[in-house]
């Protein structure tokens, strides 16, 4: 009987469904083939064995029946013959010949058939022969008519004509036996058929049993494992290790199991990584130096990190699940929370705002909040980093306040410090202080505040006064120069009358001309054209030039002052008939502290600053200064100042002039 194949012990393989099906089909085919074979065999057997035998027996019975008919006919004939005994022996002989041929037929027929029947038949024939003998004997005795002795069957003794009755009895018995033999053969044939049917039935039953058994195995191999696999999928979904299926499972299901196992592994790996990442994130958030708050769309707090506890006073347990409005929101941030909600719906997720939130104890906390939204499983979450800026804000405020309060002071201090830190300033300050006293007291002397002065006294005082003013001028030159060097000289350019400036300058140097015999000539522009200039500075320029002229011109010489409009601007010329300057030194003249050899030779007092100041001031006016000189003849200095841009002279308001010291 065909078996479905056995399973292997290891999980890697199992019963393959395909092989199972193949085997089942093979079994079925085998079964059918067997049944067919059995049927064919039984038919063949019957045909080969039983069929002919039955046919033989049937033929024998038919022959027997014919024989009986013949016998009856014979008997009739014999009867007739006997009735007509007085008849001839020939009729009976004919009848006996018929009977004898009939007997031969039997024997021939049955010799080929069953042995027992044949024997019986032979016996019968021989008996019949005997009968014939006996019959003829009887006949001889004059009893009943018997048969004539007939030719005996080959091999058998020549029997006498039997008695018909006995013959008939034998025939009946033979017929009965023939029928019995036929029935027996038929029965045997039926047995074979039945046996074949039984075998087939057994085969079918076996097959059925095998199929049932296989189904059961299939159930074990398929249904249970499938259920287990479903359970394993559930396990994976729940996150536990998947259960195993039985070793008798189908190979395909085993592979499925293996696949599920892999899936479970990778899922577990991913889940584990996710856990790690989440832990990391959680740790980062907890230890971050920014307060981090996360709420759902309704404002319920979902996350509240350590820094939030520090900043806002609520512990995590207190804060989680609470509405954020109640906890910290007030005023502006509440509105911003709403706005954040709205904006996230519009798709603008992130903004940074300054806000004031409430501490648990009610105090205000100034924060800079960064707000953004995230999505998590279809829900919107609001996130915020809060950065404490209260200290910064306070510092800003303090700073602003302090700045406003101190700005002027700082300006002042700067000015003062600059002044104080400047050597020249310091020096000039130090020099001017006593000079102020000197000039002041001399003033008081000379204007009679301490009483009238004699002429001598007045003269002495005048000298003191003159020199003190000179000293002052020197200091101012120094100061101016230092400021010029620093670039601090402020030029206040206005359209001014150059003639007026010249006048002032001449007045200023007038005292120095007192004891001298120097002619000063003025040739002033009759139009009094204006030029853009700072009157004070240009006055200083003129004063310096004139002082130089006075210093370096001997008595009897002359100085001329001229103003005239030139091509490029107003021209201012100071010419003297003094000692002059050698050509090679003329270039250096405008350098600070440069003193020409002639000047030094003449022991003319001076600082060497005058011309450098002149040059600086003129440069600041965008003008030019040029010097020509011939030693022993004289020096001419020409200053050119650009014209006023504004055309005609405007009446500028008279400045409140400082009460400068003018000599």
């Amino acid at each position, binding site marked *: 009987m065909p078996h479905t194949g056995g399973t292997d012990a290891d999980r890697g393989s199992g019963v393959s469904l395909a092989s199972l099906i193949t085997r089942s089909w093979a079994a079925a085919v085998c079964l059918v083939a067997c049944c067919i074979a059995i049927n064919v065999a039984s038919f063949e057997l019957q045909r080969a064995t039983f069929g002919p035998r039955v046919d033989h027996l049937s033929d024998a019975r038919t022959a027997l029946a014919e024989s009986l008919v013949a016998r009856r006919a014979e008997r009739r004939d014999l009867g007739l013959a006997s009735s007509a005994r007085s008849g001839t022996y020939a009729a009976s002989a004919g009848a006996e010949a018929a009977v004898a041929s009939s007997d031969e037929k039997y024997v021939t027929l049955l010799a080929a058939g069953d042995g027992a029947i044949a024997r019986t038949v032979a016996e019968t024939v021989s008996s019949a022969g005997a009968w014939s003998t006996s019959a003829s004997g009887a006949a001889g005795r004059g009893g009943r008519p018997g048969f004539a002795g007939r030719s005996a069957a080959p091999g058998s003794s020549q029997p006498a004509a039997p008695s018909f009755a006995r013959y008939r009895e034998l025939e009946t018995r033979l017929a009965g036996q023939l029928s019995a033999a036929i029935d027996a053969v038929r029965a045997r044939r039926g047995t074979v058929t039945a046996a074949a049917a039984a075998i087939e039935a057994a085969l079918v039953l076996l097959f059925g049993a095998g199929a049932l058994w296989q189904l059961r195995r299939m159930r074990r191999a398929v249904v249970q494992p499938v259920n287990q696999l479903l359970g394993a999928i559930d396990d994976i979904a729940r996150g536990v290790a998947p259960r195993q299926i039985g070793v008798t499972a189908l190979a395909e299901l085993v592979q499925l199991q293996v696949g599920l196992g892999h899936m479970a592994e990778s899922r577990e790996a991913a889940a584990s990584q996710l856990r790690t990442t989440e832990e990391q994130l959680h740790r980062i958030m907890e230890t971050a130096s920014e307060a981090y708050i996360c709420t759902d769309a309704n404002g319920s707090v979902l996350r509240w990190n350590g820094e939030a506890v520090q900043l806002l006073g609520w512990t995590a347990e207190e804060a989680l699940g609470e509405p954020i409005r109640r906890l910290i929101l007030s005023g502006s941030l509440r509105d911003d929370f709403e706005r954040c909600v709205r904006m996230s719906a519009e798709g603008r997720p992130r903004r940074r705002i300054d806000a004031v939130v409430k501490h648990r104890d009610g105090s205000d906390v100034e924060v800079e909040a960064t707000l953004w939204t995230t999505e998590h499983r279809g829900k919107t979450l609001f996130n915020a980093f809060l950065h404490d800026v209260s200290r910064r804000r306070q510092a800003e405020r303090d700073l602003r306040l302090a700045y406003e309060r101190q700005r002027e002071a700082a300006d002042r201090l700067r000015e*003062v410090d600059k002044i104080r830190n400047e050597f020249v300033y310091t020096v000039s300050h130090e020099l*001017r202080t006593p000079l*102020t006293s000197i*000039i*002041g007291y001399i003033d*008081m002397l000379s204007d009679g505040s301490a009483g009238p002065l004699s002429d001598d006294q007045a003269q002495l005082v005048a000298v003191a006064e003159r020199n003190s003013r000179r000293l002052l001028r020197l200091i101012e030159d120094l100061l101016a120069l230092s400021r010029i060097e620093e670039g601090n000289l402020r030029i206040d350019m206005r359209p001014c009358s150059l003639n007026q400036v010249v006048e002032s300058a001449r007045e200023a140097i007038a005292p120095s001309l007192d004891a001298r015999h120097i002619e000063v000539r003025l040739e002033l522009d009759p139009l009094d054209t204006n030029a853009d200039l700072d009157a004070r500075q240009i006055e200083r320029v003129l004063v310096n030039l004139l002082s130089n002229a006075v210093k370096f011109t001997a008595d009897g010489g002359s100085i001329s002052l001229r103003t005239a409009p030139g091509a490029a601007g107003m021209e201012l010329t100071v010419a003297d008939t003094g000692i002059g300057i050698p050509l090679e030194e003329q270039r250096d003249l405008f350098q600070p502290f440069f003193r020409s050899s002639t000047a030094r030779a003449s022991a003319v007092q001076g600082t060497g600053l005058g011309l450098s100041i002149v040059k600086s001031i003129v440069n600041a006016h965008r003008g030019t200064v040029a010097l020509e000189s011939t030693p022993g003849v004289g020096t001419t200095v020409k200053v050119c100042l650009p014209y006023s841009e504004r055309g005609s002279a405007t009446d500028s308001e008279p400045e409140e002039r400082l*009460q400068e*010291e003018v000599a």
Partner: protein
Amino acid sequence: MRSARHVLVVEDDPDIAELISRRLRSLGLCSSHVSTGEAAILVVRGDPPALVLLDLLLPGINGWDVVDAIRSDPSTAGIPVVVTTMLDRDGLEHLDVQGFLVKPFRALDLERAIARVLTPPEVPA
């Protein structure tokens, strides 16, 4: 109580202070003298003068602070101040004062400055 024509001179150099006082006297004005800014603020508050002649470059707190102090106190904010200084006027535009005197100044300059500030009837011609 002093008369309304009392002038406070704030000057750290004693000779110059004496000079100014003499001049003021010759103009018919009384004067008192302090040599530091702190003292000046105290005196101005305690005994408001008709005019303050203030040296800008002082030891300790400087003249600017004194001006601020005077101006910020409502009781003294109206007192005219004339500063004396050796500086150029250029850096002093923002100063809320009524006159500038550049040292060294002449008697005439002082007179003119005071005349501009104190109303003529108070200053004898």
